[in-house]
């Protein structure tokens, strides 16, 4: 059975500090609730997330830290109780049919959570046992996964001494141990070296080809671009854009982004920039900055410099970005993904 993921208007409001792995939402503080003498601040982590992820799809939630990605994963994996809204894995309501849902999912958490009292092989074997695999099946699958994740030579060592990358690989192997229909990967490549990241991407691709649904969160545009069929850009607990990476990149006016910084702000200059050929949109950025969306890049720089010179304004800095998801995020939020 192939299972998809569906959420309907998911909201999560924390009245105390959310756990680290659940993310911290958008930090949009609502009106404090009057409860006793000390009102608790409300942190809106999810503000109406509705998603439809198809069976067999690799879907990515892209957004900065605290956007609500991990909280979404937390709700979908039974670890976070939604304040309102619904979430389904396949046909099962996540909150009402938790055991059925847990049979269908494999989860790789953002923070390492390996069993430090066990060896790598034992971690996989016990995980398999929790899911009712026979001892023969456990041993066979553990061996295959250890081999696939290049952990065979450390298989019988305690994981306490493993490097961060090895722990992450083992976490992913563990999540695949019971062959789940839906795999959640929360920031899977954080802290991985480039070589291991490529191995991870390859394995995720293979797993998807076997018909499994994969939801991954990342703030790495390259990863989203490389792995996902579709993605949702999330910020402040809301989906601000959704589509294939190509569709989304094409939705940025012109595609190219020139981030300009002038010696001083000049409304007259901004107006003139708007008139340059190929310029689709001009937006004031922080301080004396101006963001210019255009369908060409390098050839515009000389013209911008000329206009600035004519207006008596010094052009201090130019940064050119090619069409990317980063530009898309910036276009929607006015902020960089890295901020």
């Amino acid at each position, binding site marked *: 059975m192939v299972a998809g993921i569906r959420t309907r208007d998911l909201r999560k409001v924390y009245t105390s500090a959310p756990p680290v792995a659940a993310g911290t939402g958008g930090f949009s503080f609502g009106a404090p609730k009057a409860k006793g003498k000390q009102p608790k601040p409300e942190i809106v982590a999810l503000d109406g997330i509705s998603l439809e992820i198809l069976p067999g799809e690799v879907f990515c939630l892209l957004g900065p830290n605290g956007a609500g990605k991990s909280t979404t994963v937390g709700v979908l994996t039974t670890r976070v109780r939604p304040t309102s809204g619904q979430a389904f894995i396949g046909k099962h309501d996540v909150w009402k049919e938790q055991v059925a849902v847990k049979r269908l999912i494999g989860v790789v958490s953002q923070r390492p959570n390996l069993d430090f009292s066990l060896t790598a092989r034992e971690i996989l074997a*016990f995980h398999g046992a929790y899911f009712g695999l026979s001892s023969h099946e456990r041993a066979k699958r553990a061996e295959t996964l250890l081999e696939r994740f290049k952990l065979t030579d450390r298989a019988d060592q305690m994981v306490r001494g493993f490097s961060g990358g090895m722990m992450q690989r083992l976490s992913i192997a563990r999540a695949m141990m019971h062959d789940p229909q839906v795999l959640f990967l929360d920031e899977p490549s954080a802290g991985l070296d480039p070589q291991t990241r490529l191995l991870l991407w390859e394995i995720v691709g293979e797993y998807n080809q076997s018909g499994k649904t994969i939801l991954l969160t990342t703030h790495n545009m390259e990863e989203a671009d490389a792995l996902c069929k579709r993605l949702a850009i999330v910020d402040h607990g809301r989906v601000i854009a959704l589509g294939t990476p190509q569709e989304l990149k094409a939705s940025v006016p012109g595609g190219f982004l020139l981030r300009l910084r002038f010696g001083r702000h000049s409304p007259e200059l901004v107006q003139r920039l708007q008139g340059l050929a190929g310029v689709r949109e001009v937006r004031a950025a922080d301080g004396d900055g101006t963001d210019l969306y255009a369908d060409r890049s390098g050839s515009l720089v000389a013209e911008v410099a000329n206009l600035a010179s004519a207006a008596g304004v010094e052009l201090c800095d130019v940064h050119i970005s090619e069409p990317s998801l980063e530009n898309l995020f910036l276009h929607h939020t006015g902020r960089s993904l890295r901020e």
Partner: protein
Amino acid sequence: MNWKAFFAMLARDAHVARRNFVALMFQTFLQPLMFVFIFGRVMVGSGYMPASYQSLLLPGIMAICMVGTGIWAVAMPLIAEFQFTHEIEDRLLAPMEISWLAIEKVVAGTLQALAAGFMVIPAAWLLLRPGVDLNVPHPILFAVVALLVALFSATGGLALGCSMQQTHIGLMFSLIVAPMIFFGCTYYPWSALEKFPILQKAVLVNPLVYASEGLRGTMVPQYAHLPMAAVVIGLLFFNVVLLFTGLRSFHGKSVS
């Protein structure tokens, strides 16, 4: 209920306990047995304590070992796993209601406490003999009391482990466990508090009193002890309250 997952988790806990067996033995038995040796053997032998003290001490030491083991076996992993290593997350995602994971912890802690209790009897007896006058006229009642004591230690561990901050582990022992032991009629019988009537009544809020007196009443019934009905009711009451509190806190820790 998914018994396969439940027993797999018990097997995991047994595997870890077996791996840490030597350290667990030292941690559980060293201090109580040194106490037995000094107070039961040296001080009785040198005439500072009456000979009957040996018989009164052994059930108290058994209670300390059981309660210490159960609390340690359940509370310490929970504190570390929820707040530091997060390794419990894998088991929270197993296909089983999360309350059963808490119950599995209680069962594992109860079994460890029982093992500790039954191992300390011969060890302490060897250190104290021939002065100990063990007498178990009702083995079934003894087994029931021992089970309730072990269960109390594990449910106490669950309630503590789900409510203490990692940074407060030291406080947990100095503010909760140590006073519980000293005011728990472990080193003296409850009847010895007759000359301190207020204290004698106040210590009845301490569940360890029922544990020590219950073991005393079933192992050395020839000495004065709390009525067994009071012991059984007291232990049942604390077990239910601690299990209920512990399960609630466990849910609070598991789901945000």
